[in-house]
């Protein structure tokens, strides 16, 4: 009897993935060894909580909110916010400020001042015209001491890099702990680590990370793949369509020819930095991506696809 009762349980495929809702999107973790899933899930939950507590501008008790409150005075920050700041300032430096963490006020002025799930889909026009971001170079940051000095009035938004950083941290730690292959997908920001499954990790690429059908399916064995686009996190203010990607140079949504930009890189942070920058850079993006040596796929507003060297199969 015992054997009969146990047999179906043994035949059932072992669970190899965890999926949950977080930060207004989905988080998926997959392991190549199901035995490693419980430990990997703990890493996922712990890292998501740590990044949220450090970087969420929607939480009054987050470390970044405290930093905003103490703007004008040097503040010593914890290791997670320290890494997130370092990553965001590096992204700003490498993109000449096109991806800039000091867009907090600009993003909020456009209406994105609360968790997206709570954001009204429509509303009146912003009171003030868009203003350029103050500039990442105003942020005083000493990584050796962990002290940051935010000028008064400057608010940070680490959304362009913090989610990708979380994906990197989770995948690397879970793979190291479990000794297996791990894929982490935080709302389309993907990082894989450890030995890949046979044939590689298969990833659909499209406008929307929740879509059933995708434009193309690629495989990667290592590194990160990220897609930025204007298809999601949209809202209306004063009859105008807005979205979450802001051009720091204007403080407004960019007038980009690209609807979607997908980039492969050694890490998810680098992939997402480049994909976000590509949307903001507009027509200059293909040349810049090629100079960076990053395989990328850009889709314009008329559904035309442009790829950079290293991206498979599709014409330029």
């Amino acid at each position, binding site marked *: 009897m015992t054997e009969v009762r146990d047999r179906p349980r043994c035949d059932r495929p072992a669970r190899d993935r965890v999926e949950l809702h977080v930060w207004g*999107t989905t988080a*998926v973790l997959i392991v190549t060894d199901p035995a490693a899933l419980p430990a990997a899930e703990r890493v996922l939950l712990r890292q998501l909580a740590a990044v949220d507590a450090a970087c969420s501008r929607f939480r009054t008790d987050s470390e970044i909110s405290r930093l905003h*409150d*103490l703007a*004008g*005075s*040097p503040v010593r920050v914890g290791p997670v916010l320290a890494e997130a700041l*370092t990553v965001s300032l*590096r992204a700003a*430096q*490498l993109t000449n400020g096109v991806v800039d963490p000091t867009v907090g006020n600009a993003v909020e002025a456009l209406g994105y001042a609360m968790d997206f799930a709570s954001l009204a889909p429509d509303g009146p026009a912003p009171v003030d015209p868009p203003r350029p971001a103050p500039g990442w170079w*105003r942020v*005083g*940051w*000493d*990584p*050796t*001491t962990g*002290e940051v*000095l935010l*000028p*008064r*009035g400057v608010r940070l938004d680490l959304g362009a890099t913090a989610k990708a950083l979380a994906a990197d941290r989770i995948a690397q730690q879970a793979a190291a702990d479990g000794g297996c292959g791990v*894929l982490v*997908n*935080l709302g*389309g920001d993907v990082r894989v680590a450890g030995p890949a499954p046979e*044939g*590689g*990790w*298969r*990833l*659909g*690429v499209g406008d*929307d*990370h*929740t879509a059933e059908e*995708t434009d193309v*399916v*690629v495989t990667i*064995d*290592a*590194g990160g793949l*990220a897609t930025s*686009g204007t*298809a*999601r*996190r949209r809202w209306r203010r004063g009859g105008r369509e807005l979205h979450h990607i802001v051009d720091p140079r204007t403080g407004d949504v960019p007038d980009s020819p690209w609807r*979607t930009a*997908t980039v*492969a*890189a*050694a890490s998810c942070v680098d992939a997402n*930095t480049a994909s976000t920058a590509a949307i903001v850079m507009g027509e200059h993006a293909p040349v810049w991506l090629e100079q*960076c040596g*990053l395989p990328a796929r850009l889709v314009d507003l008329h559904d035309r696809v442009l790829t950079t060297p*290293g*991206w*498979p*199969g599709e014409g330029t």
Partner: protein
Amino acid sequence: MNRPEHHHLRRRAEGRRRVGAATGWTAAVGGGLAAVFGVLLAQTAPAASAAVAPAASAPAEPDLVAPVPVPSVVPPPLATTAPHRTHTSTIPLQPPAAAPQLSSGGRSHGVSGAS
């Protein structure tokens, strides 16, 4: 005192008065310019490396305008070790170890799209 000596002393006194007047005007103009520049500089947003002095003990305010300092007062030395902007890592964006390949089929492990 004879007449030439008296004349000489009068001229010297007159010269001192003129120099004094000129020096006074120069000091006054200089002070005024210092005040104007002080106000103008105070109205610009402080650079990250210089923003500590007025802000170290000031309450947080919702704008970028630093408090207007008294022009004639030299700012005191910083009481704290202020974090000045340090160049963060300038390691370029890193390409993947291997370029993505087109999938030959099979169920996807996930989707990369906007979120």
